[in-house]
């Protein structure tokens, strides 16, 4: 709670939080908020510019852009939440194990991180998607599986410095098992950098998802995602600029909100921590 109070003192951080909450509400209550069915095709009503009936206009198939945008926010948040959840799981577990046990285990995990970091994310994601069927689940898994390395390094460093502290030694003398020390004492204390990393990661995941959808291997039409709406809009750019303008703005604002929130959290939680 005190964290939120601190956050509200930062103007940009507060604005980001409000944007994210607003998006979350849109996503959760999409069926009640969206004025039209996002998939309903209406051939009499194609490429309408923004108007009262269709505040953001209609697309090439006469579908309401606003409704599609609202449903797309659902997809984008869903994909990024699951992807980041997965990357948190891998990153925290591997980082904690490496930091806590040290020695050979640490060496192997660190080398593995180095190796994974040599692959540009987009190349790795593209390669994996090429071998698997493109679907929302594939994208979630692939983004999660390729974005945990930075976090693992962070958690490892945090655990390394925490494990020498007195409270860990006391827990050890009381005979607590390694697992208990890790999950009950160490990881909860490493939460601040994990939180920061999660917020930055959510923005990053939305960017990757939209890039994949844009390249035609992400979320498949007719399901709307900001990325695939953008590429559909590209074809009619000259006559209907609004088709790719709004999805682009949505991605920009959302990623900006998550990034600024992450930066603000970083400032609050540890003012001295250097940016990586």
């Amino acid at each position, binding site marked *: 709670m005190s964290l939120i109070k601190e956050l509200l003192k930062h103007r940009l951080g507060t604005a980001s939080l409000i944007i994210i909450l607003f998006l979350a509400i849109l996503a959760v209550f999409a069926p009640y908020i969206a004025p039209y069915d996002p998939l309903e095709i209406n051939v009499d009503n194609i490429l309408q510019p923004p108007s009262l009936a269709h505040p953001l206009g209609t697309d090439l198939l006469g579908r309401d852009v606003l409704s599609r945008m609202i449903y797309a926010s659902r997809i984008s948040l869903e994909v990024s939440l699951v992807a980041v959840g997965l990357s948190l799981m891998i990153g925290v577990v591997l980082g904690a194990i490496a930091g806590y046990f040290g020695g050979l285990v640490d060496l192997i995990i660190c080398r593995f991180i180095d190796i994974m970091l040599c692959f540009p994310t987009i*190349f790795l994601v*593209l390669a994996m998607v*090429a071998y698997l069927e493109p679907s929302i689940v594939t994208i979630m898994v692939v983004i999660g599986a390729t974005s945990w390395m930075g976090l693992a390094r962070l958690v490892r460093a945090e655990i390394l410095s925490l494990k020498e502290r007195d409270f860990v030694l006391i827990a050890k003398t009381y005979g607590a098992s390694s697992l208990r020390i890790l999950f009950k004492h160490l990881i909860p204390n490493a939460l601040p950098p994990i939180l920061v990393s999660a917020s930055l990661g959510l923005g990053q995941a939305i960017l990757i998802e939209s890039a994949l959808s844009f*390249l035609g291997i992400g979320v498949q039409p007719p399901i709307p995602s900001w990325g695939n709406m953008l590429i559909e809009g590209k074809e009619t750019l000259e006559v209907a600029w609004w088709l790719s303008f709004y999805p682009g703005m949505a991605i920009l604002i959302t990623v900006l909100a998550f990034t600024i929130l992450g930066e603000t959290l970083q400032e609050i939680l540890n003012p001295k921590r250097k940016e990586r």
Partner: protein
Amino acid sequence: MISFLLKRFLVFLITLFGITVISFSVIHLAPGGPLSPITDFNPKITPEYRERLVKMYGLDKPLYVQYWEWLKKAAKLDFGRSFSPDQRPVWDKIKERLPITLLLNFLSLILIFMISIPLGVLGAVKAGSWVDRILTIVVFVGYAMPSFWLAIILMMIFGVKLQWLPISGLHSTLGYEEMTFFEKLWDWAKHLICPLFVATFGGIAGISRYVRNSMIEVLKADYILFARAKGISEKEVIYKHALRNALLPLITILGLSLPGLVGGSVIFETIFGIPGVGQLMWQAVMARDYPVIMANLFLVAVLTLIGNFLADIGYALADPRIRLGDKH
């Protein structure tokens, strides 16, 4: 110094080994095996022919034998033939595209550093002021803006509306042969403005933030206080004493930012129709051209590794603590 280099080289070899293992395992992710794109749904391919293909590619042997065979060929840059109708050797396809991607990334890297360092210094010197805040927001917008969207907007404004710049390709197709050298250079430059802008804009955020934060730390150091106490001008303190120390870690950041840059090539090469490896990767993925995908993935990772390795050595040469063999 020698022991440091040896240690780094050992890590280099281990990482290289890891890259080969991961690149090799990726092909075996394919449902139906690595041959499925050329055998599935192809009525001409009888079970006997399929078996012959399996034998030809050595897919009937144990995995470690396959890996060893693949490794021996990869060392000679032999990645087999493309699955696409032209069936050209994969390396030939990559070879003609690699210089283009490297050139573009090299140019955008130089631009990123030329823009980010002054921005970072400005942000640090004026930390907390409105200048710093505006810079922060601009830089974050650059980071958060989807590069493909920026590319479309640029194409729309400069290519379609104003018609100042061409919207795709590396150079004109009509009349290119008749141009003089300088006309050709100008033609290339016009084609590269938009792609380079897209490639650079997104990269400024990371580096300039890094310079800013690193500069703020350095400006708090005792030797800066001492330099100021001696009465050295503020300009000299910042540019001569602080900047040098703040920039040192940038060498490592340079290495770390390589994968992101090269990854960005996929996006802007695809949009602007630039025949580089990024576009090749995308085309290969769309066509399920597995040999090309695998070779691309492998080569890009190896290039990144080499970049990181060189950055490490550069850092060691620049930092006297390592150069003189001091353990820190």
